[in-house]
């Protein structure tokens, strides 16, 4: 450990500020509160701060960040923006360092977010011990008042002097700006220990449910009345998530400049407490009740992220509780309330805590990482209007390579200026082109409907887990499609037809609202010519004057009309959200085993790679873990068929 006397420390900070290659950021006062902001002088730096309004996540995942710059006057022109110069952040408290380590795990997990990694690699962190403890902080309870890594330098304000701990070589190089650096004495070490212990002691707020029991506590008390009681007071303003150092959800929007020719795709913070967070293009909101949103936040922190990445996603900074106006966001109060009211025996989950991260940003190289959000150019080969609302597209990637998708996967179709939309691939695997059927439902799909052969679109993907065509071999298959569900289902169905000898009995039931909404009419007509499949069609209603030979009624009514062995048939269901509840009920009456039912679900899939958070269905990311699920795996997921 090294020591700088206060005056020399100030000179050191001023030298950093004066270094033109660095953007020097530190903690400053803002009214009675504190913020991280660019420093003009060392005098502004407040190492005695308790907590900042926003955590330093804003430097790694900015509130607003341009992720693609596009030029709409060109057929397809997009580039990544320039990133700012190197930055050093002075005064990051240990709990915030723990949160940054969690952020590393989140964004550098399977799909590396290039923009994040670039900022992360471009930022030096000078950690700092907590001198003043915020009244709502509970990092003592969460054991995040001390970190062993995650910083380049770590300083402690010891009154007349500042101690330095070196974390990385790059951190050590920063010390070239320091004059009169001397070795610490045992007294300095003692003083530092005393400060640390004191802060950690003050930051204990009597959390009865230790982090390693949160998982079980939350799981067993999902239906507790406490959720409703608390959420009745909730303003649904989103503050708790926006100020949280371990909330990372984001939205993406296109902004067009006044020239109408160029624009930017901008990523911005979003939050699961906001109503429109889960809304999809057809207007369905998957967490309409505030209680569901309120509960989701706690469950994400204590259950879903621990399940996915290992760590408890709360570092005890106390920002949510200090900034929640109705005072219902405090994890200490909430967890204690649940703990006290719980009628269950709560199990410990090893020694899992906020530090349980397995990923270190140091081990990542920018070289070769690709931008997650940069679409690839593709060309429309064929565009045909198939119904009033739907249009069919055949698309080829401009690199002339196959899309490489599995049946049931989706792509993010991108039009600069209109954004992106998740669209199921409806063609079977193979071939150099792929097919989509797009319903007019929003800005992007409206624009898409105006496009023709030769026009360019952007494609990201394929994404998600599709149907496992291999595992279905030799099995009897019953396909049930409702409305637009035929689109993703077709990718599997046509694959099965193309490889018919590999499969057992094949039956397909297809229903839509009206005859005019029926998709793939030619193919449906061709089904009737085949002896090796059975098919039945239905419509909810047939308006006067239209011709219809099939059934009338919902698609579930067709089930009793076909012969199949419930115990030895795999049922593949794809339809709108309301469809599942009823069809599954009908199937269960016939005692079809859970594991024989396969579904494909729809949620708001914005990023496609499990980062933006919108499609989360309890702990499951529909875009990544689905959209195809075995019913057995998700039937107990409380949000799947609500």
């Amino acid at each position, binding site marked *: 450990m090294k020591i700088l006397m206060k005056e020399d420390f100030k000179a050191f900070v001023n030298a950093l500020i004066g270094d033109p290659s660095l953007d020097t950021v530190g903690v400053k006062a803002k009214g009675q509160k504190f913020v991280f902001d660019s420093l003009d002088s060392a005098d502004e730096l407040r190492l005695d701060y308790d907590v900042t309004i926003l955590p330093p996540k804003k430097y790694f995942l900015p509130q607003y960040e341009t992720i693609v710059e596009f030029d709409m006057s060109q057929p397809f022109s997009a580039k990544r923006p320039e990133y700012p110069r190197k930055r050093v952040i002075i005064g990051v408290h240990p709990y915030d360092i723990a949160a940054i380590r969690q952020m590393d795990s989140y964004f550098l997990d399977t799909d590396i977010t290039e923009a994040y990694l670039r900022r992360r690699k471009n930022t030096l962190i000078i950690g700092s011990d907590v001198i003043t403890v915020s009244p709502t902080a509970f990092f003592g309870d969460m054991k995040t008042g001390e970190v062993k890594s995650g910083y380049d330098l770590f300083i402690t304000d010891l009154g007349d002097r500042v101690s330095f701990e070196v974390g990385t070589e790059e951190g050590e190089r920063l010390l070239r700006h320091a004059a009169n650096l001397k070795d610490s004495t045992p007294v300095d070490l003692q003083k530092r220990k005393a400060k640390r212990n004191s802060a950690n002691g003050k930051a204990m707020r009597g959390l009865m449910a230790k982090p390693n029991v949160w998982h079980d506590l939350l799981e067993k008390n999902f239906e507790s009345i406490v959720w409703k009681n608390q959420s*009745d007071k909730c*303003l649904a303003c989103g503050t708790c998530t926006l100020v949280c150092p371990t909330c990372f959800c984001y939205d993406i929007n296109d*902004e067009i400049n006044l020239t109408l020719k160029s624009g930017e795709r901008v990523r911005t913070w979003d939050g699961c407490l906001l109503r429109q967070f889960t809304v999809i293009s057809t207007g369905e909101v998957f967490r309409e009740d505030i209680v569901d949103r309120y509960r989701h936040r706690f469950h994400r922190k204590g259950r879903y992220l621990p399940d996915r990445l290992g760590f408890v996603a709360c570092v005890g900074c106390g920002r949510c509780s200090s900034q929640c106006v109705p005072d219902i966001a405090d994890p200490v109060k909430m967890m204690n309330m649940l703990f006290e009211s719980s009628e269950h025996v709560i199990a410990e989950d090893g020694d899992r805590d906020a530090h349980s991260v397995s990923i270190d940003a140091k081990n990542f190289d920018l070289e070769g990482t690709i931008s997650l959000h940069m679409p690839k150019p593709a060309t429309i080969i064929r565009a045909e209007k198939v119904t009033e609302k739907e249009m069919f597209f055949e698309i080829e990637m401009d690199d002339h390579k196959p899309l490489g998708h599995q049946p049931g996967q989706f792509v993010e179709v991108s039009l600069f200026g209109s954004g992106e939309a998740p669209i199921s691939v409806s063609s079977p695997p193979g071939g150099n082109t792929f097919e989509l059927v797009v319903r007019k439902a929003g800005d992007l799909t409206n624009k898409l409907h105006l496009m023709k052969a030769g026009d360019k679109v952007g494609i990201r993907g394929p994404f998600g887990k599709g149907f496992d065509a291999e595992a279905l071999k030799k099995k009897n298959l019953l396909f049930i499609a409702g409305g637009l569900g035929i689109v993703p289902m077709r990718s599997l169905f046509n694959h099965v037809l193309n490889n018919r000898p590999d499969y057992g009995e094949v039956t397909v039931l297809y229903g839509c609202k009206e005859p005019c909404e029926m998709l793939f009419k030619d193919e449906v007509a061709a089904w009737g010519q085949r002896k090796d499949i059975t098919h039945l069609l239905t419509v909810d209603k047939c308006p006067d004057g239209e011709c219809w030979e099939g059934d009338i009624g919902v698609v579930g009514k067709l089930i009793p009309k076909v012969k199949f062995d419930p115990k030895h048939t795999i049922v593949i269901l794809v339809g709108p959200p309301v469809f599942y509840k009823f069809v599954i009920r009908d199937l269960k009456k016939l005692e079809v085993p859970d594991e024989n039912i396969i579904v494909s679900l729809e949620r708001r899939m914005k990023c496609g790679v499990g980062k933006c958070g919108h499609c989360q269905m309890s702990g499951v990311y529909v875009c990544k873990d689905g959209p195809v699920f075995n019913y057995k795996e998700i039937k107990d997921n409380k949000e799947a068929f609500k």
Partner: protein
Amino acid sequence: MKPRVAFFDFASCEGCQLSVANLEESLVDVLKLIDIVAFREVMKEHSDQYDIAIVEGSITRPMDEERLKKIRANANILIALGACAHLGGVQRMANQWTPEENKKEVYGIANPADIADSNRFFEKPRQKALDEVVKVDYTIPGCPINKEEFAKVLIALLTGRKPPIPDYPVCVECKKKENVCMFTIGKFCMGPLARAGCGAPCPTAGNECEACRGYVDHPHEKAQTDVLEKYGLTVDDIMRRKTMFTYRYVEKPKDGA
């Protein structure tokens, strides 16, 4: 052909049209995209041939309703510009009194005949929002509007997209700006109910949000009332908070209206 755009104003301070003029250099860019065929604030020429009518102000008298209906009939798209057109403006608070009470308070009683309903300038004055008289296609809220948002809405219309008016509370933008929460400094903010899109200029400057943009689609009024009570506001204070720009939401018909 560039779309023809006309600006109109009714009872208002005209600050929203001024906000458009305050686009400064960007206004020059805007003029490359549209033909402004009527704009009282800055031009003498005027035409009744327009595609988009942008209307500021609240509707007060029968003569104003007539004029608005004519504008509606001429326009393909009608946009309500600002809080007066959207909600009736601060002046809607006058609807707490009867027209006669208001006239007496402001003009006195010296010459009652001059200000009687028979004088069309003074006929049954009552503040209404545009959509209480005609169909409104889009609304740009705010007192005044956010000029950047105005540009965004225009861009959206010109590129065939839905105008991007947010449906989340001002708190979201306020937090992103890292403002000190008004409640922590003893102020009473309507931000949790108010529709964002303004960029939270009032809390950013240290003043409470007064919900000039109206509420989000699903406001949690009960929770907000609880909060205001918790912070010590009386029932009267809370009512005042909720009526400044948003009297429309609580207005009950009044005798003489």
